């Protein structure tokens, strides 16, 4: 009784959200090629990185964990922006909005479906790195998985948001260099943030990817979970939630 009333008060409907997530997973599972790319590309990039730093193990140890916060952002961004864009352009989103479906149902349904894929992706690439590639970090290996998950959620949220502004697939792809690559450059992977020009390091501070990379550095340098890691993880989560709410708000009628 009280549970029923609680469910009614939620800004989304759990059954419709779950049905949407299942439907999205159904669609992705039909497309074997995309699924293979989605799960395989981060692994391929890690192997590439390992071969690149063949002669300098210490560089791989430094950069390896950091890219765990970066690759999933890019991969998930592309997948999420494309599939939600398709939902908008084929008219199914409009049809759903004439039904008792709320915008948050659609956004959350997509989020849960992609979060599940992100989890698979994170597990596979973590196992690959700590196993065959021999990536050695100070902290527990599952932290890498957490970082990959956070990165994937971030990419997913950004993708959903961008698909609201992009009119077609072409534009959505163009938003990648515009919105994601600057974060990639200033996140501290190439140059430590405190060595950057003042304004740029301030910009880096408000970019969520910076915190994913910082958290990865923490996990690599310290045994156990540090306070900074927890803070960074929470910051990313807050950011993901804000972006998701924004993308639900921009899902036009």
């Amino acid at each position: 009784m009280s549970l029923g009333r609680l469910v009614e008060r939620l800004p989304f409907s759990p059954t419709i959200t779950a049905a949407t997530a299942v439907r999205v997973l159904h669609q992705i599972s039909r497309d074997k090629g995309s699924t293979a790319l989605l799960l395989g590309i981060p692994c391929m990039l890690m192997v590439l990185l390992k071969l690149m730093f063949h002669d300098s193990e210490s560089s791989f140890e430094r950069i390896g964990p950091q890219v765990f916060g970066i690759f999933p952002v890019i991969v998930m961004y592309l997948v999420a922006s494309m599939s939600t864009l398709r939902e908008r352009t084929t008219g199914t989103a409009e049809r759903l909005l004439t039904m008792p479906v709320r915008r948050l149902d659609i956004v959350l349904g997509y989020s849960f479906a992609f979060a599940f894929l992100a989890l698979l992706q994170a597990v596979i690439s973590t196992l690959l790195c700590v196993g065959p590639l021999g990536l050695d970090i100070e902290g527990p290996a599952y932290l890498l998985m957490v970082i990959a998950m956070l990165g994937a959620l971030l990419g997913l949220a950004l993708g959903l948001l961008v698909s609201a502004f992009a009119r077609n697939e072409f534009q959505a792809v163009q938003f990648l260099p515009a919105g994601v690559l600057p974060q990639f450059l200033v996140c501290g992977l190439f140059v430590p943030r405190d060595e950057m020009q003042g304004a740029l390091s301030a910009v880096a501070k408000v970019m969520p990817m910076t915190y994913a990379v910082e958290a990865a550095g923490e996990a690599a340098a310290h045994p156990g979970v540090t306070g900074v890691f927890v803070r960074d993880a929470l910051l990313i989560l807050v950011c993901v939630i804000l972006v998701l709410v924004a993308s639900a708000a921009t899902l036009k009628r």
Partner: protein
Amino acid sequence: MRKRSGVVHLSESIPAPLQGDLPAVSAYGLQVVRGSHTVLSGVTFVVPRGCIVGLLGPSGCGKTTLLRSVVGVQQATSGHVQVLGHPAGAAQLSTRVGYVTQAPSVYADLTVLENLRYFAAALGMRGWRREDAVVRVVKEVDLTGYADQLVSRLSGGQYSRVSLAVALLNKPDLLVMDEPTVGLDPMVRRELWVVFQRLAEEGTTLLVSSHVMDEADRCDRLLLMRAGRLLASAPRSTVLERTGCTGTEEAFMHLVEAAEAAEARQRQQAAAQALLPDLAGLYGLHEQGGEADAERAAFSTADTRL
């Protein structure tokens, strides 16, 4: 010729509909402006329950925008649309109005059943009620043999029938369809119209847009549109009678010419009285009181955009 036309006349002869018999759709002074372009202007009409209404007019005359206003996905700049006694787009209507968009809006990468199950869930159906509804609509649109096929592998006609099936899931009181038969071969079109007619007999109100005039002959009532304005809103028989034409296409052309002539005369600063004999006849097409004003505007305003 048409069995239901008697019913239509009957419902029109009642001046103030009873509470339980609110019109399916009533629009008053509907105007939609997009940027600097006026898509709809002064659209006023009433659709009684349980009939097939054809919304006809050339491509780009605002049919889709009008239908979107009725289902509530298009915000009106001014004016009001009331659907089944609620403002268009109200939450209470979300399970009572079915909307079939022009491009079939179903997921091409899912099977027919998966599509229907998902949309049934989106309509809030669960468990056996959901399965029941899915099985019923698959039969209704005659897709039983294709239920497990991917929608992308279906033919164009089957594809649009999947889209129609989704709209039938919740047994809507009002079914709004945007060119449901466009691009289909004559056989499939005929089959779809059989489905529409059965739905109307079961009490569903159908609002169907088309730019193919011969489809108008299958409708009980007509809404004739041109350049964002309504030319006529009346039973088909009345339109034919008043225009003295034998076919809908001819009647439509007659009305278009009358409107164009009126505009031309306006441009030439002709005396307003010169229009009166023509207009008096055309007013007769509108039973509803408010419409006369809207249509006077339609016929007398010089529309320089044309």
